[in-house]
């Protein structure tokens, strides 16, 4: 047999062949993707990239829960058969996995529109993406920047998912992300980001991001050295997504098993103010990683992780829900743990609900401490993931707040605190939220701006 005519034939062939190996359980997915990216710096496009990829992942388990996973990129009948043979032989010598208890039984479910998370306009975006990027760069220049760097990336994906319990379905998915960082000089910078799926609104979003980056770069000129001490911070959605959205990724049993989660034994505990609800929504229309169903065939949906400030639950696959209690949350993936494959749950699109304030109200709260508005950050690192003692480096515009007004820019400070502690000291959030998905927020997070009181700021000096 030579090449396949269609990708559907691949998955049908894999399923048919897998039966010859008499796996107790078998599952696979095929991702057919085209990704394009334009990178720019110094107001010019520096490189254009196109990735074409077919990736077939195979997973099998035995009655006593030995598991093995493999993937191949060379999706031809010969290679598929070789991979299945290897799967069988490696499976037999793998030890039973104490954290695995099988794939979900399959029941036919109406997933709704299977291509609801695909905007077909993404396929033509490459023809005019350069113009859209230049529009954003010009917007930043008009707002006061001298130069900008960044990227526009867009994905067109088709997934085929099947298993030995009867699941055999496919869907399309698309998304984009855009980052622009503008410079007036080396230390006067501002950032704008945009992400989502709807291509019809991309031009406006890119121009808005460019304008924001340019304005913030201009505002950050002539910054003075920050001083260490206790501050109230107003974190922009970009920063709140990194700090508070980031740790939600550990709200799963696998992170708990590996000792990476601060949420172990926290169910029922008040972690944040009453207004704060944080959900994982793997079905949100604009969620870049939304899918109609997960790797086990569960219909995707929303899981309330923190509800009115109280930690409610972690995400679960069928297997982890059996093992540790709870219900599957429609968020099962075949993913890597330190590179090794396991079927398990993971968050995808995280949504921090909006609060009750406008940004002006958030800036205008009375405090004995000085207040700073932080627009972006990077390099968040932990002394201990469980205790959440961490530090992170604010960058781009950092602005003093006086009498509710943004005033002088400051520079060269570090947030050195504890995330769980900071969550308890949240005193407000904006009603408006923004979807953040960029280099430092790898998992998409929709977040309001958030005010936190009494945060420790340190500095490295001049």
């Amino acid at each position, binding site marked *: 047999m030579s090449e396949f005519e269609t990708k559907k034939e691949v998955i049908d062939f894999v399923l048919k062949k897998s039966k010859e190996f008499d796996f107790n359980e078998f599952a696979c997915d095929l991702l057919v993707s085209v990704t394009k990216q334009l990178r720019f710096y110094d107001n010019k496009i*520096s490189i*254009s990239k196109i990735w*074409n990829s077919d990736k077939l992942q195979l997973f099998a388990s035995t009655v006593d829960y030995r598991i093995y996973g*493999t993937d191949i990129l060379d999706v031809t009948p010969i290679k598929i058969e070789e991979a299945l043979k290897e799967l069988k032989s490696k499976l037999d010598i793998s030890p039973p996995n104490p954290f695995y208890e099988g794939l979900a039984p399959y029941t036919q479910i109406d997933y709704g529109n299977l291509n609801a998370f695909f905007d077909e306009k993404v396929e033509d975006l490459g023809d005019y993406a350069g113009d859209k990027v230049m529009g954003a760069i010009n917007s930043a220049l008009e707002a006061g920047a001298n130069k900008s760097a960044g990227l526009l990336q867009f994905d067109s994906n088709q997934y085929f998912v099947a298993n030995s319990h009867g699941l055999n379905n496919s869907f399309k998915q698309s998304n984009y992300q855009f980052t622009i960082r503008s410079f007036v000089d080396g230390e006067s910078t501002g950032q704008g980001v945009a992400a989502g799926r709807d291509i019809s609104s991309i031009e406006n979003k890119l121009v808005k991001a460019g304008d924001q980056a340019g304005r913030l770069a201009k505002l950050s000129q002539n910054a003075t050295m920050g001083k260490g001490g206790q501050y109230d911070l107003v974190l922009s959605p970009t920063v709140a997504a990194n700090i508070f959205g980031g740790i939600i990724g550990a709200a799963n049993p696998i992170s708990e098993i590996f000792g990476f989660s601060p949420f172990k034994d926290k169910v029922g505990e008040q972690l944040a103010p009453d207004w704060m609800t944080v959900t994982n929504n793997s079905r949100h229309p604009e969620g870049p990683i939304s899918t109609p169903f997960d790797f086990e065939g569960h219909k995707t949906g929303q899981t309330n992780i923190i509800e009115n400030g109280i930690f409610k639950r972690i995400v679960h696959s069928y297997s982890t829900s059996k093992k540790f209690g709870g219900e599957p949350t429609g968020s099962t993936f075949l993913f890597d743990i330190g590179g090794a494959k396991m079927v398990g749950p993971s968050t995808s699109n995280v949504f921090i609900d909006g609060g009750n304030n406008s940004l002006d109200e958030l800036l205008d709260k009375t405090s004995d401490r000085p207040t700073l508005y932080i627009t972006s950050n990077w390099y968040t690192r932990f002394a201990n993931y469980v205790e959440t003692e961490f530090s992170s*480096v604010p960058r781009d515009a950092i602005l003093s707040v006086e009498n509710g007004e943004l005033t002088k820019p400051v520079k060269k400070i570090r947030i050195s605190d504890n995330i769980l502690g900071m969550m308890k000291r949240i005193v407000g959030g904006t009603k408006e939220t923004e979807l953040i998905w960029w280099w430092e927020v790898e998992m998409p997070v929709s977040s309001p701006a958030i005010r936190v009181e009494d945060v420790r700021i340190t500095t490295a000096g*001049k």
Partner: protein
Amino acid sequence: MDGKDIAEMAVLRAQELQCSYAEARYIKSRNTTIAMTSGNVAGIGSSDSYGLGVRIIHSGGLSFFSLNNFNKDLLEKNLRQAIRLAQSSNRKDNPIEFVPVKGVEDSWKVDYKKSFADISNEEKLTRLQEIDKLSQQPWEAELVSRNIFYSDLVENKYLVTSDGSKITSELQRLYFTWNFRSLHKESGHEESRYSSFTRTQGWEVMEEEATVQAYLQDIDRTTKATARSKLIDFDSNVDFIISGEIQGIISHENCGHPHEADRILGREGAEAGESYIQEHILGESMIASEELTIIDDPTIPNSGGYYKYDDEGVPARKRELIKNGLLNELLHNRETAKIYGIEESNAAARVSEYNREPIIRMANTGFAPGSYSSDEIFEDVKKGIYLESFSEWNIDDRRYQCLYKGIVARLIENGTLTDTYIRRPTLELTTTALLKSVDAVTKDGFVAEGATCGKGNPMQGAPVWTFGNSFARLRSVPVRF
């Protein structure tokens, strides 16, 4: 059509289509991974990757595409699309150009004794279980979680460029990584440790006692620090003696990254940022003390960052980034070398996978040997801190304001290293203050820490070493807790 054929066809066809430069890289790799937590195997698997990455310059614009379906029509379609994208970059008046390199036909292979391909998963697993079992002994603080992540790589690569280079390579690489949390129940103090052991070599490394000892010694010293450490006040600035691990990470973060020419030019500005080196003059600015020379060297056999040619076909060589305190050399690829007006690149262009563009990367970065013995360097420290290992660290995006938080740290009194452990002393200062405070480096005591350096978008993880002589002395620097 095999990988080499399609790589050659890609370059030939690109030249026919008037590309001023073309390179194609065919990479086939196999990766086996095992994840263990608290003695249990949580995940085990393998990954077969193969594909073609092509980069072209046309009309002054640069484009990259990758394929893993070696179909002639698909290649043609992507090549034409890449040319259109390069044209739409509008760079005719400001074209991207590369410095020339002499085309070379060569084949190189990493020196190893036992290929990972010849070792069964069962054997790999058995060895990991043996190592894990050795960690099951009474330590001064309890290991409340322990994880081992094992990964091996066998990679075959064929690079062909329009300069006439045809370079075939084969390498084997080991990543042995561990993470654990230690808890001292009486005090409630806890530390979290993450470390890695990387070699561009074969399975024999996992059989060596030194590999096991690296893991066990790390547990031993960390659990001691967890159990014994206490807060100690220092009224003023103190002298630090820093270990190979600490000077290695400083060399990487405070010197290697800011010396990347693409960062200095702004190409990474949106993500990893630019560089404080923009404010300095190559060959003129003293950016460190005269005692300090920092090198980056990809030619160390079997090191984490070893290679013979970079991914633009340039022969690898050692780079002296800081020489006796002077800003001496940047890390270049062929594009930045052209912009800086230098004759040749110093071979820092690397890719992490077939589907990534070559970008400037470090290889093995560390302090060059100094003139002090290990004893001499402690001798005149009246009251100071020996900083041996770290946990949390970060640095601003101009690579100037850094932080390193200690785990294992001990008090030095009157030139003697004491058994008093200090809880989480933190170096938080500027790169200039840090590098200018170095007044002594030892002449012996080589230490190498494996790490995966992240850069680029999409992220490219590059294997590196942070390495060098074991001790360096920082005079009178601030400490915070």
